């Protein structure tokens, strides 16, 4: 259902630059509060570097716990940006317009956050440099290009670089607007940042081509990144429940599920915090919810395949793991919560139009999804590791330490703080895309019915 508003460029500039040309009252206290949590998190990291990984719950055989779970979680969240930006741009979906920049931003900041976790989890992160770069300090060893742990930095680095550049290129027209609306040092900053953007047909044409070409390039990268992260687990036959070929698309689809849900959360917050009712409308949440239903059903099919094939081989260790994962305390409770929050509660609700168009309901269901998806990663990683050895005396439950919980909290505060800092200097909703939709959409009369219409350029 179309809920189009007719707005002129002056109004669009004034409303969407509200957070840039002036500072909302809630902004500074919120950023300061988040900064406190962020600094607390950095302090915890310092404690961990000083005292060693023993302050966490990590121990034989569970060497990958909350940190790696959270790493995979944030990489998953990062998949929203390209899904929404690239795929919807290529399919010319009009409803993507207010969402694209915030989604791309979420990609960049969640990737930056994700990168922290494998670094700090190494215990002495300054030594990681040797392991991923060919820098020989007479150790007689170079990075092992055959290892998925070395594939990871290349994949994530490529995705991060690509997303950042994509974000910047799409930001150029809006930087031009900010240059024209500011004075003093801000004007100087935006003049340099906008590279002299004028808005002639050449530049607009290249913006369109850039959007399509970069989308087409970023899509294969988007698919490969989380596949490579999944191969950290899937390629090894040593851990029960990991050596499964379905992990690559399973992780990618799960990432899209959690990422798009995170975008829904973010859009609801943007509408409430900045008062962007004209731009972020119930129809956008409706469209996102329909997309989420499709993605969630695909995710369910892949989850089903992963679980079925877990027991397909009928081998005792794998069956024992699955029984522990689904029926033994505390894993059974976590499994139930994971399934309820990740699929069983939100998805049936999204089938109802009233829920899809209710922003508060969409906000809370999207948060539920991300709780479920974090638990999904936890349930993949930890139970398999805790049963890794065949000797009973080495089986131990992994207890997440307060420090690890603190760093999980830090990661959320870090992402939110970075988003708010960005929002102070750059518009979260693309101005030129919003203005473009005003030009390219109209109403058309067919008989007695007036319906919305879009303009498509002829090839």
């Amino acid at each position, binding site marked *: *259902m*179309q809920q189009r508003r*007719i707005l002129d460029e002056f109004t669009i500039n004034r409303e969407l630059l509200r957070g840039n040309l002036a500072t909302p009252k809630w902004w500074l206290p919120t950023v300061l509060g988040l900064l406190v949590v962020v600094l607390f998190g950095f302090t915890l990291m310092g404690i961990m570097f000083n005292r060693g990984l023993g302050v966490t719950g990590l121990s034989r055989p569970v060497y990958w716990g909350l940190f790696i779970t959270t790493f995979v979680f944030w990489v998953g969240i990062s998949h929203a940006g390209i899904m929404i930006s690239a795929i919807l741009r*290529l*399919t010319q979906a*009009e409803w993507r317009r207010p969402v694209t920049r915030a989604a791309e931003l979420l990609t960049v900041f969640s990737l930056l956050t994700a990168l922290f976790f494998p670094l700090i989890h190494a215990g002495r992160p300054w030594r990681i440099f040797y392991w991923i770069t060919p820098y020989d300090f007479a150790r007689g060893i170079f990075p092992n290009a055959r290892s*998925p742990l070395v594939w990871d930095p290349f994949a994530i680095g490529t995705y991060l670089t690509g997303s950042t550049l994509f974000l910047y290129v799409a930001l150029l027209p809006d930087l031009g607007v900010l240059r024209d609306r500011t004075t003093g040092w801000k004007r100087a900053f935006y003049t340099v940042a906008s590279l002299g953007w004028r808005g002639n047909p050449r530049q607009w044409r290249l913006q369109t081509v850039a959007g399509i070409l970069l989308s087409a390039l970023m899509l*294969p990268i988007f*698919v490969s990144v989380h*596949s490579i992260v999944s*191969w950290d687990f*899937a*390629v*090894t*036959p040593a851990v029960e429940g990991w*050596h*499964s*070929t*379905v*992990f*690559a*698309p399973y992780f990618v689809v799960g990432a899209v599920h959690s990422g798009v849900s995170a975008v829904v959360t973010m859009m609801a917050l943007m509408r409430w915090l900045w008062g962007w009712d004209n731009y972020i409308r119930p129809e956008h949440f409706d469209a996102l919810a329909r997309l989420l239903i499709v993605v969630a059903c695909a995710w369910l*099919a*892949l989850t089903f*395949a*992963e679980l*079925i*094939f877990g*027991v*397909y*081989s*009928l081998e005792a260790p794998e069956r024992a793991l699955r029984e522990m994962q689904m029926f033994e305390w505390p894993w059974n409770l976590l499994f139930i919560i994971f399934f309820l929050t990740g699929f069983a509660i939100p998805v049936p609700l999204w089938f109802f139009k009233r829920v899809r168009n209710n922003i508060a309901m969409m906000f809370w269901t999207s948060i539920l999804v991300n709780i479920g998806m974090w638990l999904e990663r936890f349930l993949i990683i930890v139970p398999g590791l805790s049963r890794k050895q065949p000797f009973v005396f080495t089986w131990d439950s992994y207890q997440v330490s307060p420090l690890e919980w603190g760093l999980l909290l830090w990661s959320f505060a870090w992402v939110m703080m970075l988003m708010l800092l960005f929002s102070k200097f750059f518009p979260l909703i693309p101005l030129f895309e919003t203005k473009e939709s*005003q*030009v*390219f*959409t*109209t*109403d*058309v009369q*067919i008989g007695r*019915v007036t*319906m*919305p*219409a*879009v*303009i*498509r*350029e*002829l*090839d």
Partner: protein
Amino acid sequence: MATSSLITDAPDDRPSNIESTALLAGEGRTAAGTGLKRFMWLLAALSVIGFVGIVFRFINDDGRQDWGFYAATLAWMLTIFGGAPMVAIAPALAKADWVRPVARIASLGAIVTAIIALLMIPLLFKFPALTEFSEVLGDDVRRRSIWFDSPSYAPHFWNVLILLTLALVGIAMAYVMAIPDFAAIRDHGTGWKQRWGKKLARGFYGRPQQWEWLKMRIGITGALYFAMLLYTNFTFSLDFAVSLVPGWKDSLFPFYHTISTFQAGIAFTIIGVWAARRWGGMNKYVGHEEMWSLGKFMLATTLLWFYFFYSSFIVFWYGRSESDSATIKLLVSGPYIYLFWAVFFLVFIIPWWIMIWNKVRDSVWGPPIAAFIILFGLFLDRIRIYVSSWSAVPDDLELATTSILQEMPDTMWPDVFDVFIMVGLPALGLLSILLVTRLVPLVSLWEVQQSRLITKPVRFLRSHVKLVGKPD
């Protein structure tokens, strides 16, 4: 300034409703030309040869391994004809306008799924039960499958049922999508077409309520077909390939099978569109825009084919357990290595290099070339998978007790009856579609007319653009 004030009308050279009705439903419809009749007789003859092949296969049969080519042919037909209706469903769900002229060609693939369901019956006689050796080994011993403790003939029963359900839903969807065209044939056709149009239109006169019901039925049958297609691919690929090879544990394989189904379905539709332009007089209805959109999806599914293949491969290659190595050897580097490389080039490398060029994608000749190559490549791929699976363990070994493939089978080559089957059965499928098109128009008349209603060429200031209405 509102956009509507900047828009003025532009000349519209699309076929009028009168012209399209005459061509697709009425007097303008030409009878089958001599060339088409000869082609259909040829297909009929090949179909008979196919049945001869099946009969002689039963007579000259040394075991399960001789039925691999039959299984591969059925799998290939399911891949192409089962996947084609997805081209009608998926873009329609996404409210894409470009799919309207091609939806009919795509949906006709569902007709053949009924034939595939029937053709599967001979195969079931050779398909081993789950407890094939229970007299020797005991009741508890059964080969690995997704049916776990189900009755011994569960895969036989469920595969037939699932395939029949797929056929039923597919035919229902194709029928429902054609109801308004049957009404047009009733009103403008002559002779037997007019009689059949009246029967099949079932009182459709285009009242608003009827259009609403039609949309709802198309939505429901479309969604059901999609779900059934996934389910069919899941069970067919696992039962008729994976579970026949000891040690082959591949959770991604059903999805690999499914994505190549989508790829083949798009390729089939592209070839259908090309044929409709070349011989069916549909030049004004389907052109480079439809080819371009279909071509983009075919490129995407081609890349996804490689992604799904590689995702399985890297897990086996890196893991290097005994079963991992055996699986790679059987399917990639062992008795079918040359076939594998042929598949790799025909299904991925060559189509990819054809389709990445904008000018080629945006033409009426480029996508069909890639589509033909892909379909041939997928045929070889199905041979690679199903022939190797059916010949992996000879009849006289205890399939249920081996958990890892110890010895590689020899390369199986098709004999003359296999060739009869591989040529005859797809010919039967194609023949059935061509027979249906004698009544059903190749291009969906009502969708073309709806497109004409909600889209129109206009002028925006000094440029020519297209205005596309969004009724939903």
